[in-house]
């Protein structure tokens, strides 16, 4: 029997997810423009794997398939996986990662809405730990045409080291570390000098900065549509920029500028699409600020001092861990119990 309220606002999970997917389109367009259409293959692979994995789990668990596949949440996870992985990873890596994300990190916890960790980021972390080499090979913008990308994705033997390198973020960090080593030929060079190469582009790496801009645009649209609030992207960008800026101000020769940090790697994607995942993120307003600020600082720390090329995924996962405690301790005072 239905009880009050008898009227409802026309809103649905499916609509929310659909808008998130739409918001990803500008970034994907920039990605294709600069790095080739290989990413579209990856997206297709991941989506197919996600739907298959979700359908299988739903079938095993006896849940209605059409309803839950139609909510599009698996597709969002799949797209995020494809967009955070290097575009030329072999197909089995994408597929395995997506299946792990959907089956283990999402469905084993009960499916939509119940997973404490962001499935896409958990998959990323798993893969970068398991296959560090494959997960660190990024083509430079315009370096590979579509057919060679396809060959890399589906082909067998890979001799990619010759043609691809690390992301600008990773490369810069390696270079900065080398610069402190007296034996290196880069010894004594400052960050600004190291970043003089064409691969670094204007802000955060050639091509990559435009992709980031695309994600920023999509994110702003989500903000305008009120799918997300400003708290998480705002606090994340601010914390990342502040922590990067602090060290940059102290030792400009040893650290990259905050703008570089914001414009490179997964910062924009993370700020607007990954950390804003409501299921695994904090939900109170103060909690969101804390959650995103923590992720920002951790991202910088892992990027600057850690062993992995980008810190967004680990930072997200680490902050996911803290979410229950953050939420518990940042509950806003309820009506009549405010101190004002």
């Amino acid at each position, binding site marked *: 029997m239905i009880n009050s309220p008898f009227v409802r606002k026309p809103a649905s999970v499916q609509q929310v997810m659909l808008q998130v997917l739409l918001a990803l389109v500008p970034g994907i367009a920039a990605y294709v423009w600069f790095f080739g259409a290989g990413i579209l293959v990856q997206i297709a692979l991941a989506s197919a794997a996600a739907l298959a994995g979700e359908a299988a789990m739903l079938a095993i668990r006896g*849940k*209605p398939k*059409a*309803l839950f596949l*139609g909510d599009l949440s698996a597709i969002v996870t799949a797209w995020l996986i494809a967009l955070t992985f290097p575009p030329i990873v072999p197909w089995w890596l994408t597929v395995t990662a997506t299946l792990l994300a959907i089956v283990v990190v999402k469905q084993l916890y009960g499916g939509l809405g119940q997973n404490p960790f962001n499935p896409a980021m958990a998959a990323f972390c798993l893969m970068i730990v398991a296959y560090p080499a494959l997960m660190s090979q990024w083509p430079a913008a315009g370096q590979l045409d579509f057919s060679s990308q396809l060959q890399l994705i589906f082909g067998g033997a890979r001799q990619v080291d010759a043609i691809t390198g690390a992301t600008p973020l990773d490369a810069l960090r390696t270079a900065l570390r080398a610069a402190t080593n007296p034996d290196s030929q880069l010894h004594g060079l400052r960050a600004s000098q190291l970043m003089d190469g064409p691969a670094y582009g204007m802000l955060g790496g050639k091509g990559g900065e435009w992709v980031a801009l695309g994600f920023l645009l999509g994110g702003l649209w989500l903000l305008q549509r009120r799918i997300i609030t400003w708290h998480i992207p705002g606090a994340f960008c601010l914390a990342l920029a502040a922590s990067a800026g602090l060290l940059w101000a102290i030792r400009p020769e040893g650290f990259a500028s905050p703008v570089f940090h914001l414009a490179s790697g997964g910062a924009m994607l993370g700020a607007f699409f990954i950390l804003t995942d409501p299921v695994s993120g904090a939900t109170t307003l103060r909690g969101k600020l804390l959650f995103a600020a923590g992720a920002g600082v951790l991202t910088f720390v892992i990027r600057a001092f850690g062993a992995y090329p980008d810190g967004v995924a680990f930072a997200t996962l680490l902050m996911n861990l803290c979410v229950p405690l953050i939420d518990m301790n940042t509950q806003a005072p309820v009506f009549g119990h405010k101190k004002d």
Partner: protein
Amino acid sequence: MLTALLVMTAVALVLGALLGYASLKFKVEGDPLVEKIDAILPQTQCGQCGFPGCRPYATAIASGEADINQCPPGGEEGIRKLADLLGREFKSLSEEHGVEKPKSVAVIDENTCIGCTLCIQACPVDAIVGAAKQLHTVVAGECTGCELCVAPCPVDCIAMEPIVDTLDTWKWRYPVIQIKQAA
């Protein structure tokens, strides 16, 4: 070898002295576990568990003499709570001790009652009022539904009647999850 023995003995002696002192200093009495178990039991005092009342049963559980699944009025939920408290596995109600029934109260048919006071003596919570050769009646609010008064009645005038919902006791039900196969 001798050094080793000496060292260990010295260490043991020092620590032993420390422990002895601490155990005197921080002595605790009483067993709070019985209280906790008793708080979970429904206090019907029906004796279906095989013990004369809820507290004796609680003591028996605490000392390991009785299992946690012998209380029909507490039902599955009670067993679950006991299992939680004691860190044991849940087990279903043991059948020899009875089955879970809807909550009810004893009602005395006042036309048949002969005022023998047998039920008054049987009632564990003094919920029946009356005197010898006078009509008895059950104070419904105090009755725990233990059924102990039913058997002693010589004229079979006591019946157990399930408690009917009133506006004060009516409960909203758990919302039915409406996930249908969206065809």
